[in-house]
């Protein structure tokens, strides 16, 4: 069965994107970015870990209010870039000195300035690939559907509404206390989203 291996991939934490069980979590709608900002601070302070905020445009400082850690993506990009640079240099060095030594316009075999353009390009290529695929991996993409899209109210997230979603597998998630908390934070509407 060719797809058996693909199915077993789902056991990996990287691909395990959604909470198990009948409910994805709670979706709370807020009227203004200010309300959302302060609600995020309170949700952060309440100790929730598996939750997210959704806005139609970037809200400055929201990452801080959500208590998000810095993304490790820059380090991935740096390591990949340096790897590409090193590989580019080593490849050319090996070809020009060991693999196929050839005198080119009277230069020494190990003429390093000539290696710079290709090494630079490979560094950029690796860094770019690292950035794209690192971003995909960190965001657990590709994901073709998301339970939040079931909510009709959530459609306004690209227009004029601000949302907090708390996933049901959060250790602090409670079917009765969490909606009450969100409501006390000024949510205009709280709704339970099915998986």
């Amino acid at each position, binding site marked *: 069965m060719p797809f058996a291996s693909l199915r077993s991939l789902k056991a990996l934490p990287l691909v395990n994107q959604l909470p198990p069980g009948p409910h994805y979590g709670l979706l709370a709608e807020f009227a203004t970015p200010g309300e959302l900002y302060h609600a995020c601070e309170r949700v952060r302070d309440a100790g929730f870990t598996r939750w997210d905020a959704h806005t139609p445009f970037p809200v400055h400082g929201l*990452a*801080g209010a959500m208590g998000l*850690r*810095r993304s490790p993506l820059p380090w991935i990009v740096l390591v990949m870039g340096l790897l590409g640079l090193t590989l580019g240099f080593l490849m050319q060095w090996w070809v020009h000195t060991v693999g196929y030594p050839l005198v080119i316009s009277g230069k020494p075999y190990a003429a390093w*300035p000539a290696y710079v353009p290709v090494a630079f390009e490979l560094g950029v290529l690796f860094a770019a690939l690292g950035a794209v695929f690192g971003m995909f991996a960190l965001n657990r993409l590709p994901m073709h559907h998301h339970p939040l899209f079931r909510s009709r*109210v959530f459609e*306004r997230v*690209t227009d004029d509404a601000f949302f907090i979603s708390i996933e049901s597998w959060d250790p602090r998630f409670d079917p009765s206390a969490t909606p009450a908390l969100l409501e006390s934070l000024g949510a205009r509407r709280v709704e339970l989203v*099915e998986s």
Partner: protein
Amino acid sequence: MTSERDFVALRPEQAAIPPGHSWNRLPVIGLVCALLGVVACAVLGLGNPKQFFFSWLVSYLFFLSLALGALFFVLIQYAVQGGWGIVLRRIGETVFATIPVMAALFLPLLLGLHDLYEWTHADTVEHDLLLQWKAPFLNVPFFLVRALVYFACWSFIALLYYRLSRGQDTTGDPLVSARLRRLAGPSLIVLAVTQTFASIDWIMSLTPHWYSTIFGVYFFSGSFVGFIALLSLTAVAMRRAGLLDTIISAEHLHDVGKLLFAFTAFWAYIAFSQFFLIWYANLPEETVWYKARMEGSWLTLSIILMVGHFVAPFFYLMGRAVKRNGDDAGGGGRLAPHHALRGPVLADHADAPSRRAQPVGAGRGRVRGRRGVLRGGGGLAHAAAGARAAPRPAAPRVARIREHVSHVARATCGVRRATCDVRRATCDVRRATCHVRRALAKARRAARHPVGSAFRRTRAGRAKAGRACRVAVSGVESADSEPGNRAVASSLIRRR
């Protein structure tokens, strides 16, 4: 949509150095430094005028390049209508306002042209074919005229931008910004050309036999990196001194840091491009410049340049915390909440022209209507009970639209059905016409047939011909007599 709160009001006391502030002493400090410099020049330079002129030229070009970098920075901000750079623009304007002073500081070099530039030596040029060939460009009168043109252009642009921008502080006239934006493009072209030629005149012609077509860009990249570094240092110092500290935020420093990082890499790119092509082509008239810089004590200096101008700043400036001058609180920090909740910033976002959708509040009725709908859900109780949220009741407007749509659909259906009818009737008519034609043809064939003519004479033949004629006639009659066909045909005729 532009309301009063959309403008970030900068009060005069925020934009000026308050009385009693230590920065008020800066002009005095500058004057003292200048006097010390003059004394040092007099003491050290009188004994060795050649060294004095070279030192003056290097120092002069360094500070001039900062002013030119500032001019480029402000012009490009206007040209691209940059928003974030407005709070930093005044620093750039102040830096390039020194250009007329720079023009005066150029005058001492006129005394040292003979010491500085080989191409001014008449006896050398006499025996040098290449310098003779370059003489139409590299001669003292034309050199002076060009310098005059450069300073005229730069001073004109610098004073224009400085005066109008300062005047805007009091008048608040938005048309000034529009005018300066229009002028920014042509000014940038003038600046690019004059700066390129100035670098060729004043630096490249020190080695008049050398060729490098990228040298103007090399000088420009250095000047811009220099100014961005000066800008970030000034901004940090101002924030520390409590000046503009509520206006210039860590976000601005971050942006300046990004520019500094990017143009450090740009400088290295240009510098390496110049070196690489010359090194690879290995032409003597080009390599001579690098040969001198790759030997002896100059090699040390070259390595310091590579490391100090590229490698060290590149890796140092890579991080985020450095660019933000330590203000690195997870994307938020001390200033961010202030930003996030400030009305104008948010209003700005909501009204950003790049957003396709109508901004919040532009269609008041629409938003209000939808809010009412959403409030009426009573979803919270359902959610708390673990049930699925109540389905959203259809808004009256949606229902109206649906009604319209179904009307249109029904009307379309009717039209289609009518078209169908017409087609079917046309078909009937055609089929009938066909029958008639076929019958007539048969009758004609029967009449003309040579055997037929003999056959017709017989009784059976006559009977058969008569039958065929009757069939033809009846076909015509039946086609004509069918009531539907007639009605359709007449209606078609009417319509045509």
